[in-house]
């Protein structure tokens, strides 16, 4: 029984059930909208967690990849005549490709240096989208054409709830598979001791790159969904603050915890809704919460809760 419960695929089943049942308890479209936003953010955080929580490599520039996905579905259909669904795929490939090319040199850096390099990458992408006004609408942004699938115009919070929910379930399934494979073990090995991983035959540079490319792809899909849902894209999608938000979500939920990515995203999406009272001080409150968490629950919410439950039942 214990062995069956330990199978991580239960996480996928559990999440699927939550996604299916949740709408029954959501009183208005406002909440459906918020839930869809949680799913979309969780998707990006999930990818980032593969990179940070499992492979142990920091990225402070993930909003850059989020932005690539976002602008792909805006620019593709508007300027290039590529259908939205194809633009989404092209955006994902582009983000993965940029991660592949840029990742090679910068993943040689460690710790703070890698953080600063990824930060620079994110800022670079943000600068390109706000400066190329003719294509991207510059700082004012541009409208995003609706997704059309087989002649069906996809819009509305409920539709996007289902699309993003389903995608998140698939995203979690893929992440669980990866973590349980030899690739996942290589990621975690690199996190704990690069030297030992190398001596055991793990091509460290290649696995770091794999994690970076995968996480960029996750972020790009999330970015596309985010602006398709909104119907509008601005350079804000790739801003530094959003990169930080992703990192905060990953750390809050728990680095190295797949479920934690979703919890972290949920908290950070829900909190501002609750904190509207503080409106102008929202980021101060978020910062304060972050500091408190890092001091008292440095492992993050989900791992801390798991340890607590294990102690109670043991």
């Amino acid at each position, binding site marked *: 029984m214990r062995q069956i419960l330990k199978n991580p695929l239960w996480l996928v089943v559990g999440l699927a059930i939550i996604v299916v049942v949740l709408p029954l308890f959501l009183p208005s479209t406002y909440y459906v909208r918020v839930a869809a936003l949680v799913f979309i953010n969780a998707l990006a955080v999930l990818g980032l967690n593969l990179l940070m929580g499992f492979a142990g490599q920091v990225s402070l520039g993930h909003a850059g990849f989020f932005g690539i996905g976002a602008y792909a579905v805006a620019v593709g259909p508007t300027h290039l005549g590529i259908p939205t669904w194809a633009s989404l795929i092209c955006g994902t490939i582009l983000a993965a490709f940029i991660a592949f090319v840029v990742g090679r040199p910068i993943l040689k850096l460690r710790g703070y240096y890698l953080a600063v390099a990824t930060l620079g990458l994110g800022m670079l992408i943000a600068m390109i989208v706000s400066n190329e006004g003719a294509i991207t609408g510059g700082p004012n942004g541009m409208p995003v054409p609706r997704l059309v699938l087989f002649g069906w115009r996809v819009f509305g919070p409920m539709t996007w709830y289902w699309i993003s929910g389903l995608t998140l379930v698939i995203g979690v399934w893929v992440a669980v598979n990866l973590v349980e*494979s*030899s690739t996942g073990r290589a990621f975690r090995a690199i996190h704990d001791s690069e030297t030992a991983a190398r001596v055991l035959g793990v091509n460290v540079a290649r696995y770091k790159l794999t994690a970076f490319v995968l996480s960029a792809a996750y972020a790009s899909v999330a970015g596309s969904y985010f602006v398709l849902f909104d119907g509008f894209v601005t350079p804000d999608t790739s801003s530094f603050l959003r990169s930080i938000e992703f990192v905060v979500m990953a750390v809050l939920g728990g680095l190295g915890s797949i479920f934690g990515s979703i919890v972290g995203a949920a908290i950070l999406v829900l909190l501002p809704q609750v904190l509207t009272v503080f409106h102008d001080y929202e980021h101060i409150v978020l910062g304060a919460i972050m500091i408190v968490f890092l001091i008292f629950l440095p492992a993050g919410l989900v791992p801390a809760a798991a340890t607590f439950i294990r102690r109670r039942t043991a």
Partner: protein
Amino acid sequence: MSILAVEDLGIAFGGLIAVDGVTFAVEQSEIFAVIGPNGAGKTTLFNMVSGLYVPNRGRIVLDGEDVTNLPPHELARRGLSRTFQNLQIFFRMSVIENVMVGRHLHEKRNVLAHLFTLPSVHAQNMATRAKAAELLALVGLADLAERPAGSLPYGALRRLEIARALATEPKVLLLDEPAAGCNPVETEEIDSVIKRIAAQGISVVLVEHDMRLVMRISNRIHVLDRGRTLTEGTARDVRANPAVIAAYLGGLGSQEATHARN
């Protein structure tokens, strides 16, 4: 032909010549010890042989192939693995997962297949786990397989590192102070583990401070002092060599060595 040959190996850090023209050869199934006082360059030598440092001069030949400038993961592929004096355990993984990482090179490494868990991936995971369990049994850690590696006592971690290195199926295994910090009982366990490894046809090269262990199990001993070779020979030769006694064993040490059982 020897399985591992080191020829005139040398490295300098700034002005400090850490290893200066060391040459030795290790045969199959042999237990070969490298000893020397602190700072003699033993670990530096290991770091060069395992590809962590690039030597300034000399050659390393593994099973007939010149591997001098190859990175560690390429050396692992060619059959060389090692353990570390300052333990390099994957602390966040379970004991058995640590060993499973060592199976990396023997697994299919297709990331796309991993993403969608094709049935073959599942079967492979089972095979890897079974092999890892076998190796844990060899070093006497079978009972602790599912424990987090970080929770193990020191002596057990030393054996875990050996099991993990063995998982790569090496031809040559470098052990950097496998008994450091271990009590006499744990040292004895490591002693028998090393003998079992050599009996399987794997060459063991070890750096060790525990004289009794070295004298007891080594076929040949290579003595370093200040980066240079002092002498090489059997335990008996080394013990009788006055230069070794002067440089390394000193007063008390030589007495200890004389009393050591063969």
